[in-house]
């Protein structure tokens, strides 16, 4: 080592300590930045000059300082991946559970005003009419109760239909966000590749990209494949959505109203490959698509379509049961074979359910051939409420089934939420900045800087002795 070598060694220490302090400063500055991953300076000791260069060089050589080799972003791919998949399932269940909650609260049960209570009042009105078959007010009370019932069934259907449309709008918005996020990831991919190829540090860009990747996984359940050039591929439904530098776009296709959803279910397609359905395997979008699914046998369809179908079933059952008895009865003036409920053609049963009689004279309360004040048919209709296959049972079965589905969805949402919490905790534990740790590092680097400076002073003093005071013997 040369005489001045020590100065360079000390200088490299100063530079390394300063770089380390700069990075610590960056960490502290970003202590609360969302998505920021802490960084460290990586450094290496520099060996003796010429060490190992030739087999003829020997003797002990001292290393010649330290070099800063890079700035490392301290993350863990596994932890990031776990966070992404946990986000996907949590988002899926939170959307699915939200849809069930909407349906559940639209039922308004159990209460004094729900459909079950109105049905009870409706049957009671028939009993009242059976008590007073000649009283016009009893007939009017029954008709008022019946129109309240039909209005409630129709409102229920329309609520389900409106909720479905809202969910579809939400799905469209989700697709727009997915496309935007994918575009950003593609841009960042390009920027990162260029920066890394040029030897620079792309840590902050990678942080941004990781944030977008997590949010894209939450939206679509996308999985991520890392490439050797620091770029990533994003896979959605088995196909590459984001490659190097370019992103494909998704579009939402299918019915835009609940009525037509059965014929053309809502689905997602690639914009550049229309007609081919993308099987979105998780995330908020999959949750939306599930809740938009048409009604299926056994009640396994989407909650909104199932609710709408149930209101139709309820309306049909009510009309069939009541009409079957009513048509056997006779009005006060002896007319028989009359219907009590009818359906407007072309409308869903729940919406098209209307009343035929407009006053007491159109209601067949008595059995055919009996006196004008006979109420036995009204009594028989009033007893439909107790039938084991009547509208009341259809309704309460549905309420119970919605209740248990909502509960299941809520339990799933809680469970996946807990998994997400664990994954987030693991990720923040790995990535986030700890101020105490940074303070400790700051002190360490400060001391390292001071030590290197002292070393420089020592070398300087040594050289001073050599240059200014040597050779003065005998003067």
């Amino acid at each position: 080592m040369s005489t001045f070598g020590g100065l360079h060694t000390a200088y490299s220490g100063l530079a390394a300590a300063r770089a380390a302090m700069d990075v610590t400063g960056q960490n502290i500055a970003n202590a609360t930045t969302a998505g920021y991953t802490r960084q460290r300076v990586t450094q290496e000791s520099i060996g003796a000059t010429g060490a190992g260069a030739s087999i003829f060089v020997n003797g002990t050589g001292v290393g010649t300082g330290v070099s800063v080799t890079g700035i490392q972003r301290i993350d863990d791919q596994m932890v990031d991946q776990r966070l992404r998949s946990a986000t996907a399932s949590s988002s899926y269940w939170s959307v699915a559970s939200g849809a069930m909650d909407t349906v559940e609260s639209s039922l308004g049960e159990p209460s004094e005003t729900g459909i079950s209570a109105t049905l009870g009042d409706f049957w009671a009105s028939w009993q009242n009419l059976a008590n007073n078959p000649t009283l016009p007010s009893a007939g009017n009370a029954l008709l008022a109760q019946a129109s309240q019932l039909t209005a409630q069934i129709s409102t229920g259907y329309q609520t389900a239909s409106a909720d479905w449309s809202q969910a579809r709008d939400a799905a469209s918005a989700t697709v727009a966000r997915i496309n935007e996020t994918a575009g950003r990831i593609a841009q960042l991919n390009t920027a990162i590749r260029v920066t890394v190829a040029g030897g620079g540090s792309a840590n902050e860009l990678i942080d941004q990209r990781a944030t977008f990747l997590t949010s894209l996984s939450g939206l679509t359940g996308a999985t991520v494949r890392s490439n050797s050039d620091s770029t990533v591929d994003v896979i959605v439904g088995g196909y590459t959505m984001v490659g190097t530098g370019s992103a494909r776009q998704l579009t939402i296709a299918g019915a835009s109203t609940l009525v037509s959803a059965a014929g053309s279910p809502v689905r997602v397609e690639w914009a550049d490959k229309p007609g081919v359905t993308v099987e979105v395997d998780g995330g908020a979008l999959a949750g939306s698509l599930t809740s938009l699914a048409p009604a299926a046998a056994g009640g396994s369809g989407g909650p909104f379509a199932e609710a709408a179908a149930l209101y139709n079933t309820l309306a049909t059952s009510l009309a069939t049961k009541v009409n079957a008895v009513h048509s056997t009865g006779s009005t006060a003036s002896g007319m028989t074979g009359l219907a009590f409920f009818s359906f407007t053609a072309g409308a869903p049963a729940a919406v098209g359910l209307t009343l035929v009689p407009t006053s007491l004279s159109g209601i067949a309360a008595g059995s055919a051939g009996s006196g004008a004040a006979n109420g036995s048919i009204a009594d028989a209709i009033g007893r439909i409420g107790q039938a084991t296959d009547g509208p009341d049972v259809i309704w309460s079965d549905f309420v119970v089934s919605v209740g248990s589905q909502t509960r299941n969805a809520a339990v799933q949402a809680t469970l996946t939420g807990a998994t997400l919490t664990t994954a987030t905790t693991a990720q923040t534990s790995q990535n986030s900045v700890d101020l105490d740790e940074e303070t400790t590092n700051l002190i360490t680097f400060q001391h390292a800087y001071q030590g290197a400076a002292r070393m420089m002073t020592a070398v300087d003093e040594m050289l001073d002795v050599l240059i200014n005071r040597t050779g003065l013997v005998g003067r």
Partner: protein
Amino acid sequence: MSIGRITSQQQMATAQRNIQAGRANLARLQEQASTGKALQKPSDDPSGTGAALRVRAEARAAQQYAVNINDGLGWSNTVDASLSGAEDLLRRAIDLTTQGANSGTMSAASREAIATELEGIRNDLISQANTQYMGRSVFAGDSDTGAAFDPTTYAFSGTPGATVERRVSPTETVGVDGNGASAFGTGSTSVFAVLDGIAADLRAGNQIGGKLTDIQNAFGNLVNQHGIVGARMARLEQAQTLNLTTSTNLETQRSGIEDIDPAKVIIDLKSQELTYQSALSVTARVLQPTLLSFLS
């Protein structure tokens, strides 16, 4: 997972999450305590909701049976009162007939007086037989005509055999009207015609001893019908008691399914309050210090 780094951000997030969870529990318990309902929505207890809906429907039906029974009792009481009135009238008619049977000792004026009173009794009987309850003749069955008996021909306007029934339980109905045809007879064989015949005989000076049997038979018919009505009233009252018990039981069931156990909820609420306050105070302590506070 081993205990890795614990960072300030992580601690902050955990603290926030715990406080949120505590608050959510507190809100849920407060809602339960203030509404008194454990079953707010079907998902709180799906099978309980099914039971609650069924119990509510049964309670609503029971409520209607109570209305039916009250209405039935109104009818029956009216029938009962008319029949009692008719019996009193007929007892007087029997007395008068017995008196008139001794016609040999009576002046024409006395016979005329008895005949006139008998005709008065007949009129009163017709008005009893045409008694109405809420616009309906209680002896006319399911007919909606204003009067059960024509005041001149004594023709019965009701459908013979038709009864007015009230539903008192899911499986049972009770008749609440009086059978006018059986109680008073119809047309020329009616009790009214019998009284007219006696009055006419008295005026004509004929012997009326033979008619005593007719009028006693008519009285017997009234008493028979009265007995039937009395038995139905007893049945209605029994049904009323039973229905009241059923309603009370249903309300107890409903409350058991839907309502909270106040003591339990209040204890839970108190302990949750304590948990929440602890979480707040622990958070306040944990988040304050950093290494910087201790470096000079």
